[in-house]
């Protein structure tokens, strides 16, 4: 259960939304939704772009808390969070260092695997590797070691942008190119067939808690960009239609990943549960999407909380980290 936010507190919250990233549009939508929810519960909210006026706006708005509702590099790679830390104003979500670890999927996989959590076999390669070595030979070595199907994805990206499931080796080079247009480093990961889950984690100071798992059933195959952001393209089951023991293990994986990566206040961990019930860690999201089709709001509502109350609790938790 998420502790109820105290609406009488009337905190001043500055939401950062937009930014320069491939997910700018999603960020703007998330930011507006969070602003609406916080306004409903009595907070004073202002939405700002993270631009050249960032520090001036922080000074001008004098917020109690900043919520960087930014997706993609402009908010999740850690840089902006370091600047927010310098400003001295408490902010929602991971610190710069933790964000850096989670934002790079290849690093996150290594750290989570060290805790005994399963993550699909993968190879992480910068594009220079293919240029300097024999690209065909490298691809063949990869498909020999990690048999098809594989998932090719940018090491640092979100919203499934640049992600391809490759079932035929002839499609692999195109998939690599499509990943490299988003990021200079790509991950080729063994595809795990199973039930796709998103588990949101709330962490308000007394330890992380997993919210009900959302099971994702895209109606046309993959859970790509369109399936994420066009209502009606995907069925969501909350909680997931899985055995309680399996769900418990999946929740453990999500909480462990949140802890290992040092995340704060909120996160979302994406997993696949295979036919044997094994939960495979795929990635952790520092600032989960909070749009009207996003996964975390569904989990919050399924947990019996209102979005307003949950978001306000998150803001209050951030306020308690002031000076930390």
């Amino acid at each position: 259960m998420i502790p109820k936010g105290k609406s009488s507190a009337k905190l001043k919250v500055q939401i950062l939304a937009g930014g320069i990233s491939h997910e700018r549009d999603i960020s703007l939508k998330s930011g507006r939704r969070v602003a609406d929810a916080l306004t409903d519960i009595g907070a004073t909210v202002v939405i700002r772009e993270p631009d050249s006026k960032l520090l001036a706006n922080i000074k001008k708005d004098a917020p109690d808390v900043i919520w960087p509702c930014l997706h993609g590099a402009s908010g999740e790679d850690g840089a902006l969070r370091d600047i927010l830390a310098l400003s001295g104003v408490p902010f929602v979500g991971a610190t710069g260092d933790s964000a850096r670890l989670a934002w790079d999927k290849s690093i996150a996989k290594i750290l989570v695997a060290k805790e005994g959590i399963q993550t699909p076999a993968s190879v992480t390669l910068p594009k220079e590797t293919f240029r300097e070595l024999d690209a065909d030979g490298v691809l063949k070595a990869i498909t020999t070691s990690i048999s098809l199907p594989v998932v090719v994805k940018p090491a640092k990206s979100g919203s499934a942008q640049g992600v391809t499931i490759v079932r035929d080796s002839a499609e692999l080079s195109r998939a690599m190119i499509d990943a490299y247009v988003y990021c200079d480093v790509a991950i080729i990961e063994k595809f795990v067939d199973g039930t796709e889950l998103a588990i949101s984690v709330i962490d308000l100071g007394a330890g992380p808690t997993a919210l009900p798992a959302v099971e994702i059933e895209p109606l046309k195959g993959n859970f790509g960009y369109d399936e994420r952001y066009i209502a009606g393209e995907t069925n969501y089951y909350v909680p997931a239609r899985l055995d309680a023991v399996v769900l418990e293990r999946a929740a453990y994986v999500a909480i462990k990943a949140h802890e290992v990566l040092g995340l704060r206040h909120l996160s979302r961990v994406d997993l696949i549960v295979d036919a044997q019930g094994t939960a495979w860690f795929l990635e952790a999201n520092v600032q989960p999407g909070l749009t009207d089709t996003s996964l975390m709001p569904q989990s919050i509502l399924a947990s019996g909380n209102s979005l307003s109350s949950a978001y306000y609790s998150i803001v209050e938790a951030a306020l308690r980290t002031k000076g930390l």
Partner: protein
Amino acid sequence: MPNEQQHVTNLDSWLDSYAARAETLAVSEVRALFSVVSRPEVVSLAGGMPYVAALPQDLLAKAYNDMMKEKGLLAIQYGGGQGDLKLREQILELMALEGIHASVEDLVITTGSQHGLDMLAGLFLDEGDVVLAEGPSYVGAIGIFRHYEAHIEHVYTDHDGMSPEALQQSIDKMKAQGKKIKFLYLVPNFANPSGVTLSADRRPAILEICKREHILIIEDNPYGLLYFDKPVPDALRSMDEDGIVYLGSFSKILAPGFRVGYVLAPPAIRDKMVLAQESALLCPSSFTQMMISEYLANADWQGQIDTFRGVYKERKDAALSAMQEYLPNLETTRPDGGFYLWVTLPEGIDSKAMLPLAVKELVAYTPGTAFYGDGTGQRYLRVCYSYPTPENIKVGIKRLANVINLQTDLMETFSNTGR
């Protein structure tokens, strides 16, 4: 198995209630990427926005004040479904500049010419009907035709515009397939996206073919008055009254925020358009029509169009010069007016797939696929030079060159794989 507390949702309670054509209205990832163009760091060569800063605001302020003083109550009242009579009379003068002589009775004012096109599509298109269009063609028209579930048949177009021979071949092909052709959609002057103009020689040939085949022509002409050095050939509508519906707009010669366009149609079509407009909107905005009418009556609107021509010519020159400097090996059109260059990329480069890289490098363009209804156009992109300053155009094309080089390098890296 689902338990009692389990909730299943597709996040749209009305998914089963939509009309089938709602399927044609999808948000795209490319559209989402364009969100970054509002950031000042990004040079946008993407959207076809007029440079409205070249329009002195005091001209509009005066028109507004005079209009409110003289016709304030009328301006905020409902108007007629066909549009304001005085404005229609003034539009006749405007169209005369392109050789069109018509009756004020046959003009219908619309909420931008886009709305006129949508009404025409609604009047003429059933599912599966064929629309013939240039290849490439205007993205906004393609969206409308798709929404009415038409088949868009692109006709080969070169530096002189649509090829009459290719038009005949496309007609024959559609007829052989038993398909019903409803109209030919053309942007004959400084076309969006190609920038090319239908040559004077080809105009009568296109008309003759359509007349013989009993195919209506929709002539969409938002850019015709924005020539750089010499006027375009007279409008197709100046050569034929019954076989052509002519669309005009104030968006490019004044400002798009007014949302005022117009349609000149044969009487029977005009009647249906007025009824369609009354059904959908009751009437176009009295307020913006009267504003424009006042502006046309008392401001030097022809001088203002000259100003726009100068601005766009300077930007076109900047764009072509930057193309020559940074991308000398790429083929581009060299427009004599309007807003656009149409660029052919090196073999194998897909402009849509490359767009995320461009966003990363802080430049935006429109991928060629947007301008084809059949999924082709990957090898092309549209550069719009109307809005950025000449300095920014140079910066943008320099960045674009870097993007193309990076993508070419990436393609070459993987060119010998998968054998």
